[in-house]
């Protein structure tokens, strides 16, 4: 490197531009909320918002690893559904079963991720097809297993993670467990992407041949990305199971919402570009947007239309700015 060339300020700016657009969009939405409903910024209601947003942010983080390595994971929505349905049936209201079943859910998520990863890498099936097949398999399997309607029930202990928090904290009142889980997952994701693993994963997504010829274990990296996605989906399922009731609709469409969030955050489909912080901010932005729509009394039915317009507009603006 020639001496005149190294300008630290330049690269700091370069890094910011990656998540710049999503930050700008988020800031605008937050300002609109500030005008419309200042109470949104009371710590308790802010935390409640984060609690609500946690599952999608976690799913987006998981999806990020798969996308940045050059793949897709279309199975996460059905995995969330499967996890919740399985948990309800196995726990069946028995508190003693709660923690063993949570462990089992984590294991199941990892297993599905492993299967996705191995089929995609060892059998060279495009991940779009692998995870589409996995989606059909998971949906079919839970329906078959439960005979068409979810059975069993979750325990109060299980719902703890999704619903409760550490009480009596001054100023915040309650610190939801979901927010703690989110913080933990976000930290893991950021640390992973800052590590050598993360940089090599980006290279694998950017140019798998070059990465392999530099000594990277490309297939292993991709499998690990799927494992992370499966694991994070399992964690999101634990939270979502706690929030609401047990139904086949728990995870419906979440794969697309998560991919939307990731792309909104400036991550490029096809791999090699984008940051995990951007991906998670993308998910937060979507949730803020949904909150805003509620505030303005837009019918829930129109939510997806707005989501569709926003994603098209955001990506289009991102494109034209870059060129």
């Amino acid at each position, binding site marked *: 490197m020639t001496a005149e060339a190294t300008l630290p300020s330049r690269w700091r700016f370069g890094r910011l531009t990656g998540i710049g657009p999503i930050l700008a969009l988020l800031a605008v939405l937050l300002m609109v909320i500030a005008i419309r409903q200042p109470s949104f910024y009371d710590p308790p209601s802010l935390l409640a918002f984060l609690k609500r947003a946690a599952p999608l942010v976690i799913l987006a983080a998981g999806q990020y690893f798969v996308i940045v390595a050059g793949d897709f994971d279309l199975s996460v929505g059905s995995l969330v559904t499967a996890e919740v349905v399985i948990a309800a049936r196995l726990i069946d209201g028995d508190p003693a079963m709660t923690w063993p079943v949570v462990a089992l859910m984590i294991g199941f998520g990892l297993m599905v991720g492993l299967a996705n990863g191995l*089929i995609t890498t060892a*059998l060279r*099936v495009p991940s779009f097809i692998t995870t*589409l097949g996995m989606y*059909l398999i998971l949906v079919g399997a839970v*329906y078959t297993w439960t005979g068409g309607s979810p059975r069993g029930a979750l325990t109060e202990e299980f719902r703890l993670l999704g619903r409760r928090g550490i009480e009596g904290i001054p100023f915040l009142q309650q610190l939801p467990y979901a927010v703690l889980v989110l913080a933990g997952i976000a930290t893991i994701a950021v640390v992973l992407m800052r590590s050598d693993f993360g940089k090599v994963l980006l290279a694998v997504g950017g140019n798998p041949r070059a990465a392999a010829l530099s000594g990277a274990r490309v297939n292993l990296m991709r499998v690990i990305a799927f494992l992370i996605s499966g694991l994070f989906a399992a964690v999101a399922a634990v939270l979502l199971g706690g929030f609401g009731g047990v139904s086949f609709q728990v995870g419906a469409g979440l794969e697309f919402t998560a991919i*939307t969030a990731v792309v909104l955050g400036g991550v490029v489909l096809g791999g090699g570009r984008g940051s995990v912080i951007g991906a998670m901010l993308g998910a937060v932005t979507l949730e803020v947007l949904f909150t805003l729509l509620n505030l303005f009394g837009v019918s829930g039915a129109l939510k997806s239309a707005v989501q569709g317009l926003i*994603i098209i507009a955001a990506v289009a603006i991102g494109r034209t700015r870059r060129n």
Partner: protein
Amino acid sequence: MSGMRERGVWVALAATLTIGGLLVYADGGALFGQSSTVSMLQRAAGLGIVAIGQTFAILAGSLDLSVGFVISLTSLIAAETMAGSNGMVAPAILAVLAVSAGIGLVNGLLITKLRINAFIATLGVGLVIKGYLEHGYAGPAGSVPASFQRLGYDRIGPIPMSFLLMVAVAVVSWVVLKRTRFGHHVLAVGGDVDVARLSGVRTDRVLIRTHVICSLCAGIAGLYLASRLGAGAPRVGAEGGYDLESIAAVVLGGTVLAGGRGGVAGTVGGVALLAAIDSVFNQLAIDPFFKQVVRGTVIIAAVAVYALRLRRKEALA
């Protein structure tokens, strides 16, 4: 050659029909009885028409995730425009074709002019339509006249009209892809956009047209479903899983997801295979949900076999 890949799906279909037929026979039924054949062909028709359209998009290196919602939307446009009156059938059909072509145009323009990834663009358009449907409709609406219902129910011998419609769409598509300049250009754009552009192919226009064709096919499927159901249904497309299943059928037929390689014949085979599996499961009265599991497995396995063959071929070359 792509021929080998396309043949694979027919071998799988023959095997499924033979083994399935024997199993059903042992179970005391008949896979090729009049009623089961009819229902098998009818099932194939709807998905088939959508999948043929999807083939164009995928061959050009794109894909369309909005088809499910286009089907729902057009079924409603058809039924509401007709509103039970015979005289309104033709205007309704025209309206459906115009709207679906328009949606295809939007998809194509978003992808080519705004350079949005096809996955995101068509997902976004699909979501917009979904929002419109959920906002405006709680359940079935409109009604089609009896004359129009004949499309869904009439048949010649055991062959339903709808199946003939699909065959017609398939034959036209086959000729278009093999024997027209546009068809050659679709495969060129899917094979390598830059090469196609440098050779003087108007690549944007080709890609936009494939999306118009894809949406038109979804519109035709919407018409067919309206005639089957007698009314427009806001959730028929999404619940039928037409978006992802049409892509699955195309890939099952040996067309490469990345584009540039494959064809309509394989897609028809892929659709037939999915319909045959359905039919066997219905006849054996196996848990209907379980067939989803089998579908998923078959799709993954088929593509794995294609990938394996390709690797063998490359190893030999």
